[in-house]
């Protein structure tokens, strides 16, 4: 085998019609999907021998920590940099993620994921950046529990795999719920744990999870999303219950900006 056959779903712009284009790329050792796309840049000719324009895609670190190059490769959402050609069945089929608007070809707009992090107040509310000494002590076991969640690179695989993330819902998805848990685990973050729980309990929040459990299967960082969501679910239920006992009305979480 000296050539790789690649089928790429292309689209010139957000409103254009998509189309498929095939390429034959010379095989070299140690190739990944990124190096296929780089070869096409150097020789933008399709399998029919016609001159075409280079494929547009997103990438940056090429070592699976920035999350940029996520696409659907042979039906699975994953990072193109970590998809080694030797492990892939041919023809290799590349499509853009389907849960986000296409910008061009394999490039999509995942801004909604960053917006969702605003909704769950994804930060530690520090007083300021002046010198206030060290942060709170954290037991190594607690840190080890939180750390995997902190490696979430907002890549969108979990959103892509989740049947409940779609154009009919406002579901914020597994990544944002897990981030809420991350900040609630931190001693300082826990100080406004309730606000985050309320956000997660609100419209488009955890109630939209249908427990399909696809998210965890595709997470490249192996974040235990299923158990995290289950735990957050318990906590929001408990929180709702105590609220109800206190007779406070529950605030709708997402239709107003949280500041």
């Amino acid at each position, binding site marked *: 085998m000296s050539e790789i056959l690649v089928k790429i779903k292309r689209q*010139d712009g957000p409103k254009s019609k998509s189309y498929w284009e095939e390429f034959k790329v010379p095989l*070299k*050792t*140690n190739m*990944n999907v*990124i*190096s296929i796309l*780089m070869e096409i*840049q*150097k*020789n*933008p000719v399709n399998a029919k021998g016609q001159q075409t*324009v*280079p494929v*547009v895609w997103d*990438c*940056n*670190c*090429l*070592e*699976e*920590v*920035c999350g*940029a190059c996520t696409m659907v490769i042979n039906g699975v959402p994953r990072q193109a940099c970590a998809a080694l050609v030797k492990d892939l069945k041919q023809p290799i089929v590349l499509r853009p993620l389907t849960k986000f608007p296409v*910008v*061009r070809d394999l*490039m999509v707009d*995942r*801004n909604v994921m*960053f917006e969702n*992090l*605003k909704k769950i107040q*994804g*930060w*530690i509310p*520090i007083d*300021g*950046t002046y*010198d*206030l*000494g*060290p*942060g709170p*002590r*954290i*037991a*190594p076991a607690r*840190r*080890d529990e*939180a*750390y995997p969640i*902190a*490696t979430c*690179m*907002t890549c969108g695989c979990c959103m892509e795999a989740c049947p409940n993330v779609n154009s009919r819902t406002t579901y914020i998805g597994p990544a944002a719920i897990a981030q809420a848990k991350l*900040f609630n685990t931190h001693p*300082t*973050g826990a100080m406004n744990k309730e606000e985050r729980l309320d956000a997660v309990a609100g419209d488009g929040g955890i109630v939209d999870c249908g427990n399909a459990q696809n998210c965890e299967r595709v997470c490249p960082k192996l974040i235990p999303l299923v158990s995290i969501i289950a735990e957050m679910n318990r906590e929001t239920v408990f929180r709702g219950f105590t609220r109800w006992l206190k007779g406070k009305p529950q605030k709708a979480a997402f239709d107003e900006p*949280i*500041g």
Partner: protein
Amino acid sequence: MKIVIVGGGLAGLLATIRACEKGADVDLISFVPVKRSHSVCAQGGINGAVNTKGEGDSPWNHFDDTLLGGDYLANQPPVLGMCEAAPKIIYLMDRMGVMFTRTGEGLLDFRRFGGTLVHRTAFSGSTTGQQLLYGLDEQVRRWEVEGKVKKYEEWDFLSAVVDEDGTCRGCVAQDMKTMEIRAFPSDAVIMCTGGIGAIFGRTTNSVINTGSPLSSLYQQGVYYANPEMIQVHPTSIPGDDKCRLISEGVRGDGGRLWVPKDGKPWYFMEEWYPAYGNLVSRDVASRGIYKVCRELKMGLDGKDMVYLDVTHLDPEWIEKRQHGVLEIYRKFAGEEPTKVPMKVFPAMHYTMGGMWVDYDQMTNIPGLFAAGECEYQYHGANRLGANSLISCLYGGMVAGDKVLEYGKKLKKNTADVSGKIFEAEVARQKEKADKIYQLNGTENPYKLKDILNEYMTNNVTVIRYEKTMKETDEKIQELMARYKNIGVCDTGGWSNRTAVFIRHLWNMFELSRAITGGALLRKESRGAHYMPEYPDRDDENWLKTIKAKWTPDGPEFSLEDIDLSLIKPRVRRYDVRKDEVMKEEEKEEKKEAAATAEEK
């Protein structure tokens, strides 16, 4: 006050937070969504002399190691400022919720890194950069919600807007979706655009690190300082698309370099450098590996490759501390690093040189500041491992503060400046962009970059010969001529990444000429700059910053004295402990003093 910050890596994000805290409004422009900035790649850690292991470490000791590591080419006062602030900055990041690795007592843990004999490096497993970047990203998001920050992500920086008095009044950038080019008026601009790895092709850097903003500004008159100082990291796994780093922290945690000799492992670095062993400074380690592979021809299977071995360490322990790195190796090399030694080779990694800045992080264009890897200030001729993250944060912090002081003193605010200067700069940039669309020749831009990469990597990295560097400079000029015959191959007006790439390509050529020219000029060996024809450090003639100034006919160089007000340069040795070197030098000095006294 309105400021523009270009780049949202560690430097840009902390500058943003500082400026917001002090009341400024920030437009944050970035090529990639800031959370995907190259800083995510940093693995091993961040230095700060917190001294939690009873080793008597101190900011002064950190400062001393940093200067020695950089072969004394850095101005000393800002380096001391950085080292003094480092412990506080690490604590600040801790308060932001960064999940640093902890000791049994719940305190921050520290590991060893190169060019030092103490545990000074705080870390979060082996994804320290990612964790630090996210911590800052979250705080910036908070300011975004407050309405103090407006992000312009997936915009390409094109140029600074400079008024008749030579003062920076904002910048011009292009939206890479709509391809719109527009001006961002502001009272000051802070550049935090990172490194230039793409010039060398397959490096440890992220692919967007073309150095295009640095180059545009160099072409607008900003000095490019010490362009020749390029760091090659000793340990990476070569790949077809990039070289993936195996962090120095792996050696900090006990990893050893070796090749077989007479059927047994030969730990060459430990033999050559008994005091620092595998943790010498990076330039020394890379040259060591080159010597083994190229000169002694003892690379694995005769190839450019040596072992980096962690198989003697407790697999569970090393997994916990280095999971991210070991996973990269498993994924990309397909072998189990806790069972089989890793195979590694040096790769271009970092640029010590960059925009010339003063102690307030301001370039020679008033109102234009720079922080992070894109400026030259902290690392001299070679950067110590884990010193970059701290220099990015410190530089970002200083810039964020100083920019406001600058704004207060500004006689005329940008709001009162005529709109014409913005229109003129936008028009100039549109014209340049149009020229790219009109390129209808036969050259493929990506192939031209490959040629540049090959020449720069072969000739202007670890070992530098005059002859091949001259050839490289000629080659770059040839490529610049061939550039005019590029075929743009994509003339679309929406999300046209090829057009953006072509702009960056030219900018890479301009920087490459300064890098090669600077290296040809510096007739000595210092830190990362090693010329076999001039193998020694020459403090008399070359303890100087090289400043490149752009001209249409190529770079023009000048020299600037180094601020040596705090420490006298010593010989740089890693085979003996530095306290012993200091003792020896003291003895020598005393002897000399006695001799001169006798003469009198």
